[in-house]
């Protein structure tokens, strides 16, 4: 029995439904899932199977139609301010990076801290440290247009970590990268996640990526076919 399996669940999902168009479209249809603290879970499945929808609901970007979600003993239904919850607990990484093109790499990393209580110097130092750790020390003031795909995704990873979240939600983070860059980004991401004891839930089509996760969840038609329990 591994140490991971003994750890407490960071996320518990029961009978989760996400329906659109008055119930005609069932993006999620009765999903049950437990994710443990520090676990790396990959979600695989064909397009339209509900992978990204599940990630969006976990990340409070979408509100479920019904079902129960609990994050560290806090039911989602009791979350007053979803934005604040995201800022304090969740880091997002997207396939298309979603960097702001007119901001430097450093400023892109700092953006999520705008409106937070800390000082600008504090956030700047943290952002520089993260970018340095991700091998972008000499790219701090480069704009996204001057960075390679791998470098952009590393900036996005740094951005997801700036507010010291407990859980990273990554939607096909290597989907836009060539295999060499994909491997490098994955190495960096998994390394940081392990080092900081973070939970990583990653949607991926790539079998080599999901093979590196602690658990693979397979979805189809809005349901989990395999890997629901740790």
């Amino acid at each position, binding site marked *: 029995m591994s140490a991971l399996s003994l750890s407490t669940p960071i996320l518990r999902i029961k009978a989760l439904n996400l329906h659109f168009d008055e119930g005609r479209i069932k993006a999620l249809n009765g999903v049950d899932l437990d994710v443990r603290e520090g676990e790396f879970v990959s979600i695989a499945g064909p397009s339209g199977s509900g992978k990204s929808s599940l990630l969006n609901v976990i990340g409070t970007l979408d509100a479920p139609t019904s079902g129960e979600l609990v994050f560290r003993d806090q039911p989602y239904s009791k979350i007053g301010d979803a934005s604040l919850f995201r800022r304090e607990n969740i880091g997002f990484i997207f396939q298309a990076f979603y960097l702001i093109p*007119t901001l430097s790499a450093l400023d892109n990393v700092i953006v999520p801290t705008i409106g937070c209580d800390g000082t600008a110097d504090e956030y700047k130092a943290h952002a520089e440290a993260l970018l340095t750790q991700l091998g972008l020390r000499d790219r701090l003031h480069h704009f996204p247009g001057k960075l390679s795909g791998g470098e952009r995704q590393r900036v996005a990873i740094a951005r997801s970590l700036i507010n010291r979240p407990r859980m990273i939600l990554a939607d096909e983070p290597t989907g836009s990268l060539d295999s060499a860059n994909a491997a490098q980004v994955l190495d960096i991401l998994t390394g940081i996640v392990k080092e900081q004891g973070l939970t990583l839930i990653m949607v991926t089509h790539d079998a080599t990526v999901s093979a590196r996760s602690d658990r693979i969840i397979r979805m189809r038609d809005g349901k989990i076919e395999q890997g629901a329990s740790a």
Partner: protein
Amino acid sequence: MNLFRFALDNLYRRPARTGLTVSAIALGIAAVVALTSIAWGFEASWQKANDARGTDLIVTKMTSENTMPSPFKAEKVQQTLAGLPHVKEVVGLLSEMLTVSNDAPPVFVFGWVYGSYLWEHLKLVDGRWPASREEPVVVIGALAAEMLHKKTGDQVEIEGRVFQVAGIFESSAVVENGALLMTLDMAQQVTDKPGKVNVLNIKMDADATEADLRSIKEQVKQTLPGFVAITSGELVSKNAVVRISKAMSNATILIAGLVGALVVFNTMLMSINERTREIGILLALGWQRGTIIKLIVSEAVILSVAGGVVGIVMGVGIAWGLEHIELMRGKIDAIFSMPFFFAVMGLSVLLGICGGFYPAFKAARSLPSAALRYE
């Protein structure tokens, strides 16, 4: 990186739209600044002229609401006023706007009682004053001399009669600097208004108090039906031209405010529609809805403040230009003050907030997942 810098950056990356919006706001603010400063300056320059003469009260026909109140026979009224307590001097004044040169626009021609206190505040810079009440000469304000290209010893033709320029004077009031001055007797002759004046100026003795002024006003009301005794400020504020110019200035403020707010509204609405996905990213990254509202409103306020600053500079320039065109020289004296500029900036900020609030609210209501899917 902070919210303000981020807002600035968002505006900087759309230079054409930002420039057009700032220009539109600036035009509105410039119109407000120019018209308001001229309206106030018009009022102030007339009051300054009255105050500079040392007049305590002005008696005129109650129904007169022009810059130059309707002329009336002065003799009986003057005698009644002279008998009131604390009244030191009562002198008539006749004024007309007349053409004195084919090359220049009409100018004010004042007729003042020869030897009265009205002349005392003027500074003679060349020549001499009229030597008697019947001497057919004029003295010219420095600005009028420049506009009419006249100097001491030249001649001017007024209403078909030739007058010699006896001297040139300066006054602290622009309306006097741009005017021609002759004795009241000459003015009555040349305008064919014998014995008539537009107003009677009352100078009180040194012991007179505010209560004495109020008493004179009351006595004029009771003993001279159809006449009214008012201060120069009251006369000017009742003046129809001042009222019209102030009404136009207020209308301009209203229109400029509405147009400015609509311009900001349109710009910000287009901006947030273009940035739907970016707003979704910010929300996904943990930005609170309040922070989104602050960002959009900040951008709107930056636009309007920039428009306000440019508009003030343009408005001052327009007012200065109007003061110096031939038609207006010597008639208006635009006034500016820091409180006025602060008020204009306040108006700019207000229209930024008004124009930016709905787009900000709309952006903040975006559902992050829908915004991220937006193409």
